[in-house]
């Protein structure tokens, strides 16, 4: 385990339930500062939930999440907003651009809300950010005129408008064509290196993720099933990690949804 | 430009609201701008108030000068006591003024008509008009008419 001060986020003993369904069961995570950390795992294992917990939008049943040593759930509402404003950014799966604003206005939105910069300065910042994601030419388009990938890139420009210390990417590669995927992988690792950001990438695209991640967590059944650098994880001897990394249909994560015995079930329908 | 159109629209909307309120106040409820003026209270006891209600008009020579504000029953005399709010400028009713309960038209609303007398003294705030004429109750009127017919 690395030195505590090198971790921007330290999660200990996290438990979270949604109804009867246990999503996290005493899970621990350390997110190293300035690195790309990937959270991987089968669908529905709580990857997105983890991001929401880190973002302070959900409260865990027990356990703590420390961001730079501050416990997120002991912060007041105002302090939490302050933290999100200055240090965190999140890129949503759908992009989540404001549909009634143009691309330019979307990127300018956080600047207008949180700063009192003059219009000329806002314009400069917006154009720099749009240039970084390659959409400077699309600034006057409305979000519904953009393709899925462009939507996500515009949203990325909005996320980095206030220069956060950490960006969380929720399924950045989902539903992208190979080119779009290439662009996004490139952008994530470029931003990480050039701006010294901490990135958390939630994904289940193994190859793209492995190519940019410095550290990977594989979560399954509410626990951390494996962690480490990508190369080490490939050779991890846990069955679960192997099943996930190699995409095997059956294994510790069963193919069948839990059900009563097949034979009994079929016979039962005749009796009743 | 777009924002200006928007603001103009909202401005017109607000203006329409204010105009509507004015129309409702002046044309519909007949509110005069000098309302909210001072008033004083007079009482009158009637044998029968027959259908008079709160907010009924109080008139002199057909001109409205006030409203009925309360109606109670005097338990000693079994008379209906009417509390009236009269505009302060009409404060020269003599002590021998009479009050009558009248009806506007055959089926119209009941109101109080005051007829000034000839006395030297004027009624002051909270005083009672003693000389009153009760409401005409249709049944009594018909009854009396039939009785007279039979006597003839």
């Amino acid at each position, binding site marked *: 385990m690395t030195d505590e001060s090198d971790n921007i986020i330290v999660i200990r003993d996290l438990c979270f339930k949604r109804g009867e369904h246990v999503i996290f069961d005493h899970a621990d995570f350390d997110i190293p500062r300035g690195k790309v950390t990937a959270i991987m795992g089968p669908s529905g294992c709580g990857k997105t939930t983890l991001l929401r917990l880190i973002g302070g939008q959900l409260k865990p049943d027990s356990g703590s999440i420390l961001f730079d040593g501050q416990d997120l759930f002991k912060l007041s509402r105002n302090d939490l907003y302050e933290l999100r404003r200055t240090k965190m950014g999140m890129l*949503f799966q759908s992009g989540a651009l404001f549909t009634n604003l143009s691309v330019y206005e979307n990127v300018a939105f956080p600047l207008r809300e949180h700063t009192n910069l003059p219009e000329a300065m806002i314009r400069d910042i917006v154009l720099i950010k749009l240039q970084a994601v390659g959409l400077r030419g699309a600034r006057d388009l409305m979000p519904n005129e953009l393709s899925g990938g462009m939507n996500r890139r515009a949203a990325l420009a909005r996320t980095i408008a206030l220069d956060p210390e950490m960006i969380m990417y929720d399924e950045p590669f989902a539903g992208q064509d190979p080119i779009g995927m290439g662009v996004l992988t490139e952008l994530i690792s470029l931003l990480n290196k050039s701006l010294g950001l901490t990135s958390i990438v939630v994904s289940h695209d193994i190859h793209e993720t492995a190519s940019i991640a410095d550290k990977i967590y594989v979560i399954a059944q509410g626990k951390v099933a494996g962690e480490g650098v990508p190369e080490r994880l490939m050779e991890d001897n846990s069955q679960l990690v192997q099943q996930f990394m190699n995409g095997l249909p059956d294994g510790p994560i069963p193919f069948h949804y839990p059900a009563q015995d097949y034979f009994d079930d079929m016979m039962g329908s005749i009796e009743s | 430009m777009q924002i200006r159109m928007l603001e103009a629209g909202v401005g017109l909307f607000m203006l329409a*609201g204010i105009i509507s309120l004015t129309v*409702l106040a002046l044309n519909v409820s007949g509110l005069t701008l000098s309302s909210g003026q001072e008033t004083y209270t007079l009482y009158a006891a009637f044998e029968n108030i027959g259908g008079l209600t709160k907010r009924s008009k109080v008139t002199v020579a057909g001109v409205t000068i006030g409203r009925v504000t309360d109606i109670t029953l005097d338990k000693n005399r079994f008379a209906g006591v009417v509390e009236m709010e009269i505009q302060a400028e009409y404060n020269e009713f003599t002590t021998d003024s009479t009050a009558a309960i009248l009806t506007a038209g055959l089926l119209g609303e009941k109101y109080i008509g005051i007829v000034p007398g000839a006395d030297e003294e004027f009624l002051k705030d909270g005083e009672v008009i003693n000389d009153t004429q009760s409401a005409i109750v249709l049944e009594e009127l018909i009854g009396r008419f039939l009785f007279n017919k039979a006597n003839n």
Partner: protein
Amino acid sequence: MIERLRILGRSGLDILAIQGRSAIFVVQSLYGIPSFRKGGRLLMEQLYAVGVLSLPIIVVSGMFIGMVLSLQGYTILVKFGAEQSVGQMLSLSLVRELGPVVTALLFAGRAGSSLTAEIGLMKATEQLTSMEMLGVDPLRYVIAPRLLAGFITMPILMLIFNVVGIWGGYLVAVDWLDIYEGSFWANMQSATSFDEDVMNGIIKSIVFAFVIAWIAVFQGYDAKPTSEGIGVATTKTVVYSSLAVLGLDFVLTAIMFGDF
């Protein structure tokens, strides 16, 4: 038996929980009203969307309702030879009842449902969450201006509705049915009191505005983030606000005009 009791108890608790959540929600949003910075433009946009765009339906409905009231009133009153009182009947029924209630129902259908759908859609497309992650409180930025716009515009719409209704009734009564114009206005003015009738109508309208705006934004904010969920929420807005308006109208009328 115990199972049924349990279900009853649970649904009771669920209802209480929703009431509680919506109360917290509206208090937090109201708390956000005075502080929304650069809020002038946001409020202006909502005043336009909620108020100005509702005008056509309010004006047209007001016109027809006034006309029909005059016509119906006339056919009944003329049997008692009291057709000159049609102005009085028209103004009292509009100012006391139909103005606030019909405006509220139309407002719930026109503006309330679109508020719910808009907020629900913003929720479903994660715009509200992403706003939160950008450090902007959606209660302050999205909800508060819409609530406020609802409070402000509905009483104004009601006033406009009343005036248009009375004008429509006037056209039918005076121009078509040959009621003498002088007695039309005189009867109306002697029967309608500003303090009691007009003001009580305005108070009713303010109460309805509060209830509808609250229901509409809460249903949107609380909608399931799917297209089906938005549909359900929109329907709920119209149904709940209509029921709330009609129920509250009875209570308010009893308090205001009940003469206890």
